[in-house]
Structure formats: C-alpha cells, structure tokens
C-alpha cells in the first residue's frame, strides 16, 4: 500500500502550482472579481494548451486521458490560486457528465471542444425546491424540448452549451437555442457566478439516462473538495504568515497559544480534508465499493472544515481579516459557495446514513444522492 503521490503526479501538481502562480496571481483574481468579468479567455487558452481542460477525458476526444487522482491534484492547485471562472463547471461537472453518459458522436461534438479549450459548459441541476435530489426536479422535457427553470447554475453566462438534468434524462442545450434566457443571481462568491436559467419550449438534445449521473456527480464532488482543500491550504498559509509577522504586546501574535491553537486546528482540518479528497479520488478511480461513501465523507468533512478554517483565519487576522483589501474574504466567499454546492455537510451525512445504516446500494443504478 502506498498513499503517496507517484513521480508523475508530483510533477503534475508542482507544474500546476507554478502555472497558476504565474498566470493567475491574486492581483489578477481581484481584478476579474472587481470588474465583474466571469473569466479570462487568454488564461483559458493557456490552460487548454497545458491539457487541463481535457485532463480526465479520453485521448480520442483530444483529452489527456488521466485519472481522477490527477484531476484532484489539479483542482487543489486551482483552489489554492482561487481560479475564477468556469473551469470546475466545465471540466469536472459538465464534462464529467458528458463523458459518463453521452454517445460517441456527442462526445466528439461536445467533449472534444471542451478538451481543446474551444467551449465552456456547466450543469443545470438545482431548482426552486433547493433539492439536490433529482426526483424533486420539475423541469419538463417533452419531445426534445425543455420548459421550466433551473437555479444556481454556475457560469451559465459563459457556457457554450448547458447540460440539463431532468427526471426524464440528461439534455444538452446550446447557448443560442431559442427560448433560453439567463439571468445573474448575484451572491457571495465574487469569483464564480450563479445564474437562473429559464427554458421556454427550448430545443434540447438528449445525452443519456439520468440514472448514470451519480458517478459523474461524485467525481465532480471530489474535485470540488480538492479545490476547497487548496483554498484551505492558502488561507492557512496566509494566517500562519500573518501570525508570525503581526506584533502585539511586543511579540508576534503567533507566540500566544490562543492564536497557535487556532492555527493548529486549521492545519488539522486542512490535512484531514486532503486525506479525504485523495482517498475519495482513488476510490472513484478504482470503482472501490466505498467510493460513494468516501465521496460523501470527503464533502461532509470539507464542507464543515472550510468554514471553520475561514472563521479561524479571519479571527486570527483581527481587523485586517475584516478588511476588503485583504484577500481572505475572497476565499471565505468561495468557501461558502462550495460548502453548499452539490450538498452541504448535513446533506452528505444523510447520504452516508443511507449508505452505511440503511445499506442502500451505492452508485450502481440508483440515484442515491436523494436526501429522503
């Protein structure tokens, strides 16, 4: 058994860290956030040139053909940099769903464009009920046309096509399709935007059966957890640096145990979230029997941890942590959005209970993301 990264995984992670540090520094993130630009097209092209947009997809669609573990490492570094825009929604969410359920022809048409960096996409799942259970979805698909409303759709304004989950299958809608309207839902996270997406008799192409969504959503969930881990790590680093530098009562505040112990807790929560993200990624990549449970444990743990880490960080920074100029709030905002995305800790505890107390069979066939 070896729960460490192999050489090529270490190189991928290190390269990604350097790439984002060089191409997406915090000044750039801030500039995008404050000018309300959803993403940077030139950065997107550079990411595509690195192969990032096709990291987990087969080479026949111009992807890199790497596994979930590699995706997780890339997402961790993206999270550290607070990468703005539709990377997670395009690759880990919409891309993973298309890869899991669409036909070969559809993958050639859509997934290959994602891999080559030519298209951005997203998944429309949630509705006014705020339920992650697809059984609560009301959006209607009739004769290849969709009518209804999806909410909290990330990055819909820059998507070239939107993947839509309904009770009668998963569909794809082109951005120019008639009857499609997209309205911003301004929210906490300034670096990734929600939208309401309305469909009025909008033509849609069926990609596949909704029953096969579960595994793809778990991959997206694990990727999101990894992104949260990267964010937590950055927030921890900022806080420790600050505790070493900031002086009160004539000494660095990091000398005081009340401060040290908060940093120690941040460290424990960050490392534990990382262990969980890596394990879930490995379990998903190998179809381990506990893959679904592990994914929910990772999301549950990280959802609570990323909030706690952010809370400690602001507290240790004192007044500076409350200031707009400080970068912490940008991470804190993303953390809240990620905490609820694809189910918060309470949602995933119930899913864990279904899997380990009720012993409901996991991913195979049934939509076990239900909260009932």
């Amino acid at each position, binding site marked *: *058994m*070896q*729960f*460490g*990264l*192999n050489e090529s*995984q270490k190189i991928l992670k290190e390269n990604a860290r350097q790439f984002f540090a060089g191409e997406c520094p915090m000044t750039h993130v801030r500039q995008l956030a404050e000018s309300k630009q959803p993403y940077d097209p030139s950065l997107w092209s550079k990411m595509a040139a690195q192969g990032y947009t096709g990291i987990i997809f087969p080479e026949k669609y111009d992807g890199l053909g790497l596994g979930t*573990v590699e995706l997780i490492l890339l997402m961790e570094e993206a999270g550290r940099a607070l990468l703005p825009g539709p990377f997670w929604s395009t690759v880990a969410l919409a891309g993973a769903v298309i890869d899991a359920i669409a036909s070969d022809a559809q993958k050639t048409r859509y997934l290959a464009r994602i891999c080559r960096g030519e298209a951005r996409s997203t998944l429309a799942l949630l509705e006014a009920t705020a339920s992650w259970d697809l059984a609560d979805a009301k959006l209607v698909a009739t004769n290849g046309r969709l009518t209804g409303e999806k909410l909290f759709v990330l990055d819909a304004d820059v998507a070239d096509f939107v993947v839509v989950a309904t009770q009668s299958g998963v569909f794809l809608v082109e951005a120019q399709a008639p009857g499609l309207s997209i309205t911003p839902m301004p929210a906490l996270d300034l670096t990734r935007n929600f939208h309401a997406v309305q469909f009025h008799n909008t033509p849609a192409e069926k990609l596949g059966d909704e029953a096969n969504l579960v595994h793809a959503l778990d991959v997206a969930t694990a990727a999101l957890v990894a992104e949260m881990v990267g964010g937590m790590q950055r927030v921890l680093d900022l806080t*420790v640096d600050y*505790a*070493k530098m900031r002086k009160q009562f004539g*000494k*660095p505040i*990091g*000398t*005081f*145990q009340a*401060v*040290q*112990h908060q*940093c*120690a*807790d941040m*460290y*424990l929560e960050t*490392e*534990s979230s990382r*262990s*969980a993200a*890596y*394990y879930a990624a*490995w379990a998903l990549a*190998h179809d381990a029997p506990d893959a679904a*449970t*592990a994914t*929910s*444990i990772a999301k*549950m*743990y990280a959802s609570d941890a990323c909030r706690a880490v952010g809370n400690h960080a602001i507290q240790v920074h004192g007044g500076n942590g409350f200031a707009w100029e400080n970068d912490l709030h940008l991470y804190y905002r993303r953390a809240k959005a990620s905490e609820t995305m694809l189910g918060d800790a*309470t949602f995933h*505890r*119930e899913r*864990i*209970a279904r899997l*380990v*107390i*009720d012993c409901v069979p996991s991913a195979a066939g049934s939509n076990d993301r239900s909260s009932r």
Partner: protein
Amino acid sequence: MDLNLTSEEMQFRGELRSWLTANVPADWAERREDSLESRFEYLRAWQRKLYEGGWAGVSWPKQYGGRGANLMQQVIFWQEMALATAPPMANTLGLGLIGPTIIAFGTESQKTRYLAKILSAEEIWCQGFSEPNAGSDLASLQTEARLDGNFYVVNGQKTWNSYGWIADWCELVVRTDPNLPKHKGLTVLLVDMRSPGISVRPLRQITGESEFAEVSFRDVRVPVENVVGSVNQGWDVAIGTLMHERGTFGAGLQITFRRNMERLIELAGQLRRNGKSAAEDPLIRQKLAQCYAEIEVMRWNQMRAFSRISATGVPGPEGSIQKIFWSELNQRLQQVAQELLGPFGQLAGSSEHSVDKGTWAYGYLRSRGNTIEAGTSEIQRNIIGHFVLGLPRSY
C-alpha cells in the same frame, strides 16, 4: 498512489490471520469483572503465546528476538489484532516503548539482559516520567539521582505510572544535575522495582479501577551500569520513547473505533425514538454518520502518515494530527453512544439490564483520559504550532 496491499503484505496478513484464528482466546471479554491481578496473569499468558508464535515485538529487529517487520507490516499487525478482538499484551510499555528505547540507546549488555524478558512477559515494565508537579512540563521534573560510588541514589515521587502496581522494572527519568538548564540535567535509569526504598500505591482513577500507580523513591540505589544513553542526555532518550507512543498502534485503535461504530448502528436499529426506530431518527442519523465519517478520515490520515514514513523514513507533518484526531473523536463517539442509549448508557456491567456489559458507561469515563495521556491536546497543538507551522514558542 496505490491503496491496495502488495502481495507481500497480503502474505504477511494471511499468515498472521491464520495464527490469530487458531490462537486468540475467546473469553477475554468475559474477564471484565475479574480482579486486576487475575486479568493481568491472563494477559501475561497471552503474550507468552504470542512470543512463542513469534509475534511479540513485530517491529523489533530480528537480532533482538523481534520479527523485523517493516512499517506496513506493523500496521497490519495492529489491525489484525484488533480485527481478531485479541486481548492486549501484558507488557505493552515494554514492547512498544521501553524495548525500542533500549534497542536505540542501550548498551549491548543491557540489550542482552532485558530485551528477551520483555518479549516473553517474564519481566513487566513501567515508565517513571510524570510527577505530581511535572505533567505537560515534563522537563521540570524533580526526582533526583545523586552519584555515590558506583550507584545513583534516587529520591523523589512519580505518578501516573501505567502498570506501576505490577511492574518488575521501571524506565525512570531523573535529574542528575540541578545546575544545568532543565532539559540538560536529566538522565534515564533502568530501575528494579523491588529495590529497597521503593513504595508503590495504586492510583484509583475516574473509572474506579487502578491502571496507574504512584511510586515514591527514598534513597533507592541504582547501579551506574543501568544508565541508558549518556548521563545528562536523558531528555533525548525520553523523547525517543515518547515518539514511539505515536507509532503504528493507532491502526488497531481505528479498527476498535470502527467496531464500536458498527455496534452503535446495530443498537440504533433496536432502540426507539419518536415512534420509530432510532436508526430512522434524523438527528441520530446525522450524529452516527458524523462519527462514521470521522473514523474513516482517521483511517485515511493514518494511511497517508504511514505511507510517508515508509517511503521517506521520517514522519510527515500529518503525523502530528493523529493524537488530537483520535482522542477527541473517541470522546465525541462515546457521547453519541450515550445519547443513543439514553438511560441504558449509564448502566454498569453488574446490572442485568446493562448493554454490552457496561462498556459504554466505562468508555464514556475512560475517554476523558484520551486527551490527557501521552501528551495533552494542548501540548499536541503546541507541537503543531511550533514544530509544524513554525510559529514562535509560547514558553
């Protein structure tokens, strides 16, 4: 990253598993109400059996009678012991802490004299570290040893000695030079517990039993050849011992927690809440799922830490979180058990209505010690703050 066992690891596990299946005594759980002494003799016999089977001191080098197991094999050993619900070994401290310390710091004649009898449980060992006024601040200890010819003369008081009431020998930390800074003037001695001037008093703890003892030393004469390591270098030896306390043993603990968890899930199916099975109660489900999840995270943290050590030879930073993680988790788990069991959670094993022979009432109290023994949670957080995150020392 490959989380499957290698074929070598599978082979080791298979061999151990079949030995345990054939040899683990089945009646340990029923000995809860027996006297401490008779329970201890039972454990001594069990360790003797392990020793004869070649399974005592798995981590010890072969030349000292151990099995020379690598780190992953040690992890597997503790996991399999827990899976087989094997009793603990009598000489826990000797095998896990003191033997390895003698191997690392001892002279050849010390190794010859002591190691084999540790493995066979012929001689039981305790540690003389904590004192009434030296707990977390261990280096401030006051028990003194004065050189008198070929002997050290020891005076002072130790407390919280695990197995102190039965031990034959003690790894004792004493102050040999009061004029040096507190970390510099310490020495480790191996002390015969039957020496004149030693008196032992069992220390009754919160659970009502006496796992620990207080030991006082009045003009106890210890031969100079019983010094481990160098005189006044005892802090390094003592810290070396404490490092072993945070070793692979935790892998077995995780299995034990997991078994407790499975039992709680089973009990939830038998108890009722708000007109339905407790296993269907939303709040109980949330709490059980939280514990289940944390026990898994504990396992994954351990897997990462063990992999790091076996790949690089040194513990990674994730190692320092293990003690806080398991000790605080066990306290939460025990509280969830109490909430689930309601009034039954308090019952002692002697009650005919007790659940699992009173283990939950006992576990609830015993778990309070988890965040204190082997380095308090506060000390652990100081270690992370200072040694891992590089924050300035607070003291």
